């Protein structure tokens, strides 16, 4: 089911890039409250992995999660609306940047807790397979997450029960300000391998390399091969969180940042298109993003009276807090 089209892959990478740049502007403009963790620089990973998925598959993301949701095909307009806290948002304005979800396309959600998604997606994939679907799942997480016990437990569970989950570690060199070497004893790939999980490293800045690695893993998983891990080496082009735009935290050497930003997935994939194709995609993406932002900003905000509407799926209502 892999989508091998370089143009569509470029479009996804470009869409995420422009989406994130606009989102940062909306943060600065006060339309997005609370800030975001920009996915800038890491677009090739979400785009490449999602190109290898079929419609029955599911994924779960991270705090740096916009790219995963968009690459899987969520509506950018409803995504912007979510970030702006609007009723038309994917989560009706209840989730925001760190919880954007679209279960209708198998996006179980971004997740603000580092390392949390691995076990959740393992359970979801296992359940869907029991229900007769040929589902595989993807759990995205950062280099920091491999130090969370809950994720390592999930590695074990998925391997033991041969649940086809592709664990995708986006190694951008830092967990907030903590460099990988200061946090990870041994290696990331080696950690998965210890659970009998096949692990490969891939250039996360090259969308096609990611796609190919993911496609091969997905094929093996669908054939019954059990979970796999991809460590995608990447670099975060911007701050850990937009909060850093106001408060300078000193932890990445400027020349490292320069070097890191030099390998840009948008350019790498863009080079593979004709100038005409690329220009067409860029224009189309620009129009999409423009319209999406407009949609979001024109959308109504939810009514404070409905603040607890979705608290209980069972329809139970909560006692309010007034005196």
């Amino acid at each position, binding site marked *: 089911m892999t989508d091998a089209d370089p143009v569509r892959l470029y479009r996804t990478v470009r869409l995420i890039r422009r989406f994130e740049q606009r989102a940062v502007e909306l943060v600065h403009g006060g339309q997005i409250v609370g800030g975001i963790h920009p996915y800038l620089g890491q677009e090739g990973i979400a785009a490449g992995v999602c190109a290898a998925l079929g419609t029955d598959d*599911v994924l779960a993301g991270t705090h740096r999660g916009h790219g995963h949701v968009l690459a899987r095909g969520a509506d950018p307009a409803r995504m912007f609306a979510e970030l702006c806290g609007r009723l038309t*948002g*994917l*989560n*009706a*304005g*209840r*989730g925001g940047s760190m*919880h954007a*979800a*679209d*279960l*209708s396309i198998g996006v*179980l*959600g971004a997740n603000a*807790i580092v390392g*949390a998604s*691995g*076990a*959740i*997606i*393992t*359970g*979801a*994939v*296992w*359940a*869907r397979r*029991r*229900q007769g679907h040929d589902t595989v799942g993807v759990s995205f997480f950062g280099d920091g997450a491999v130090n969370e*016990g*809950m994720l390592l*437990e*999930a590695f*074990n*569970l998925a391997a*033991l029960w041969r649940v086809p989950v592709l664990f995708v570690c986006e190694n951008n060199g830092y967990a907030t300000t903590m460099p990988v070497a200061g946090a990870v004893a041994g290696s990331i790939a080696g950690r998965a391998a210890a659970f009998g999980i096949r692990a490969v490293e891939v250039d996360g800045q090259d969308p096609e390399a990611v796609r190919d690695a993911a496609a091969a893993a997905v094929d093996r998983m669908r054939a019954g091969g059990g979970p796999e891990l991809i460590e995608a080496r990447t670099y975060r082009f911007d701050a850990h969180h937009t909060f850093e735009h106001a408060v300078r935290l000193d932890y990445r050497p400027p020349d490292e940042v320069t070097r890191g930003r030099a390998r840009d997935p948008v350019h790498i994939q863009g080079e593979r298109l004709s100038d005409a194709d690329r220009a067409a995609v860029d224009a189309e993406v620009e129009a999409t993003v423009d319209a999406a932002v407009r949609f979001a900003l024109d959308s109504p905000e939810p009514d404070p009276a409905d603040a*607890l*509407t*979705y*608290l*209980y*799926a*069972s*329809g*139970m209502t*909560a*006692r309010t807090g007034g005196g």
Partner: protein
Amino acid sequence: MPRLSYRRALTRALADELARDEAVFLLGEDIQVGASLVTTGLAKRFGVDRVRDTPLSEQAFTSFATGAALAGLRPVIEFQIPSLLFLVFEQIVNHAHKFPLMTGGQCAVPVTYLVPGSGSRTGWAGQHSDHPYSLFAHVGVVTVVPATPADAYGLLVSAIRHDDPVVVFAPAGAMDVRDDVSDLEPVPLGRGRIHRFGDDVTVVAVGHLVHDALAVAEELADQVSVEVFDPRTLYPFDIDGLTESVARTGRLVVLDDANRSCGIAAEIIASVVERVRLLAPPRRVTRPDGAVLPFAPALDRAVQPSREQLATAIHLTMKDSS
């Protein structure tokens, strides 16, 4: 009428729900063999795919259940020790509980967390003897503490069918209670039960302590007329049912096997005094603040609320209002 033990009532509830609904499955440690003596025979009857033994990875299998629930199944997890709920507190409270709201109503997380043998198991000491139900009432996860075999059956069935997460505490002190039960049926969540009517004072007792409250009520029957109210569900709490009772009796004593500060006894008192003018100050008989159960049996007992303390509290309440 057949006599059924509380423990077997739980087994029956699990079996009936496994039989009724393909979406139900069990997860836990040593549940195929049935080390807790609750899941006995279920693996044989329903297969090891639906009665799944897990590695010792509580956080992962709790979140695994969340994921399976998101995909439409109805997992039931057995925890061997109440304090294992501390270990998975994040996974329940920060994930399972929050997903419906955070996704704007896109999903439900119908997971049941069952703790057979909560509270003191004499001799199991500090890390095995907690009764942390008030924590779940605080965070707003449905919390059930059945006192009788019929309620154990009926509430566990309702928990499994409920569309939100539910924690079911089956107190060690109630596991061997037996009762005549004619027909077993679901018991609605959030509805209390008056076990004994009385005129002078309403005693609210939680879980196994219902039996202690009934015993004390009988003991004192010639001096004071005690009504015994069993909330059964601690969250959501049947405040209407309790208010009706206390409005009649005018007096309130709570008997609760949890730590005192911010426990369900505090909530009950606060909710009642917000609504009802009492004839005497309310009283609560609880574990002490910050209780850790010491190992030595006499100390273990000393930290739990006792019948003597309850009788004293009832007497004092009557005196205060005379």
